[in-house]
């Protein structure tokens, strides 16, 4: 009786293992042959860099001619410059990838805070800007932080927190569109829009 039980037990194990094996082997065999192909593909010596491969994309690219209206851009640019010149209080500038208020900016902010306190303005918008280098998204956050740090500095100088709003334009509104350090230094700024 005991022998019989052992026998049945082993039979069950055998059947199960056979089932598993055959069940898998079917799928595997396909994959296996794939594998061999793929491996050969990789190990085969590839000929010298493909002169024969044509830059197919280029042929396909539809090339709409969209020239910027240069006049418009120039106008926008000069109006930005004008706005900066017109603002009763001056911009402050920042170092690359930094939002700490520089010593030269502290002087300007003292003057700006005095102006805001004396003139009883209804609100002031602090815009944070970055230069074109680096990541658009990170710059958007960096500009926000520049605006916020500037706001905090003004609040510490006595300006009412509730009249100061902040916005970041990231690298999207450069004052100077040149690609050099001089332009970049100008573009890393906080700008103030005063509403009397």
């Amino acid at each position, binding site marked *: 009786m005991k*022998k019989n039980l*052992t*026998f049945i037990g*082993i039979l069950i194990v*055998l059947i199960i*293992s056979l089932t598993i*094996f055959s069940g*898998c082997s079917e799928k*595997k065999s396909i*994959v*296996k042959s*794939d*594998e061999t*192909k*793929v*491996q*050969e*593909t*990789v190990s085969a*010596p*590839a*000929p010298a860099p*493909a002169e*024969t*491969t*044509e*830059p*197919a*994309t*280029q*042929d*396909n*690219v*539809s*090339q709409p*001619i*969209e020239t*910027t*209206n240069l006049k418009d*851009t120039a106008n*926008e640019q000069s109006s930005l410059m004008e706005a900066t010149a017109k603002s009763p209080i001056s911009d402050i500038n920042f170092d690359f*990838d930094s939002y700490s208020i520089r010593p030269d900016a502290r002087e300007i902010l003292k003057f700006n805070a005095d102006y805001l306190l004396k003139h009883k303005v209804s609100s002031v918008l602090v815009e944070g800007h970055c230069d074109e*280098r*680096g*990541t*658009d*998204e*990170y710059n*958007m*956050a*960096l500009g*926000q*932080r520049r605006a916020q740090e500037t706001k905090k500095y003004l609040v510490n100088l006595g300006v009412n927190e509730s009249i100061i709003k902040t*916005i*970041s334009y*990231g690298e*999207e*509104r450069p004052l100077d*569109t040149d*690609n050099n350090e001089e332009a970049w230094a100008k573009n890393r700024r906080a700008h103030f829009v005063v509403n009397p």
Partner: protein
Amino acid sequence: MKKTCLFLFLTLFFCTLFIFSHGVDAKVYVDIDSPNFQQIPIAICDFYNKTASATKSENVGAIISDGIKKDLSLTGIFNILNNKSFPESNPSDAKESVRFSDWALIGADFLLQGNITQNNKGIAADGRLFDITRGETLFYKKYFSDINNLKFLSRKIASDILLTLTNDEGEFNTKIIFVSKKGSKSDLSVINYDGSELKNVTNHQSILIAPRWSPDGNLIAFTSFKDGHPAVYIRNFKNGSERKVASFDGLNMCGAFSPDSKKLLLTLSKDGNEEIYTLEIGNLKLKRLTNNYSIDVSPVWSPDGGKIAFVSNRAGSPQIYIMDSDGNNVRRITFKGKYNTSPAWSPRGGYIAYEGLVNDKYQIFSIDEEGNRIFQLTSDAANNESPSWSPSGRQIVYVSRKSSKSKICIMNSNGSNPRILIENLNKPVMPTWSPRFK
């Protein structure tokens, strides 16, 4: 007793076989992340037109094979051999008669041979893919096509070749969305992966940044200043309807969708400084994930949804960090360089592409999730930025900026075979690869 022993032996034998067979196919795929990956040399013959000369149109066979070549070269993993080097222009469709050793001499690993017959209903084509080294037929397939739809026929055959050799469907049915800047105004445009069908998507005429596809392909999230301040919008790609989903005080910027397309990662500054949140798209419920007095930005989910990569300057400079999807267990993974941003998680997992500053230029890198292995993928004189992976994880689209011009390029995920997708457009930036469309 003897019987028992025999059965026991057999059982063990089969179990061992099972385990063995399991181990064999652990390495099925081509390691396309490997810097040693070399392009697959393939010969594509012009399809042989068997139609009686009175009814056949010229060149159909060559048009079909040219289409296949174009599609295969877009994948970046094939070296398509020049027809001029072919030992026979019309190889036999019978395996026994193909001169495999001559094909091997020109460096081909695979050979596509095809025949077509035309009638008034259209074109019947059959294609055979041969493995030259082993002298075997890998597939024999029949196709039917309208004479005016040869591009589709070529694409079907190219897909079959790709699937047979790499076990992956590739990116044939994908699109790339990007921001086109005209002066100070930006909008979203979309283009097919093969460079066809360039179209405008939005009409915000405003600052517009950070577009993201939902993994189901239905939605696009982006940040727009349309109403004068940054807000996050979700747009239905098909019907064009738009919904403003985040418009708090300060910065509102979108990150990536969750793998199930139900949540969106955001960067908001409403609580004092830039922090990362998840937004449930259904009910607009917010959950804050980071809590650090520093910039936390550009969050992306891992493909399994378990982790989130993001950029933080908490250690003084922008670097890539990974946290669990509940915000716990934050660890830094990039330590080389002073500026590492724009993380993009490979859809196959394992690697994160990003941009880093090296020798005063931004270049694209990939790094494994543990932060141990770094590969620099671009190294030319331009600023190469905003990497986004193709659905197969085989290719990366990115923007290449030089002075005030930019172009959108695609390269293999190991940095090889860079090629231009879009240039001559005014200023295309921030490309994002779509999932596969059905």
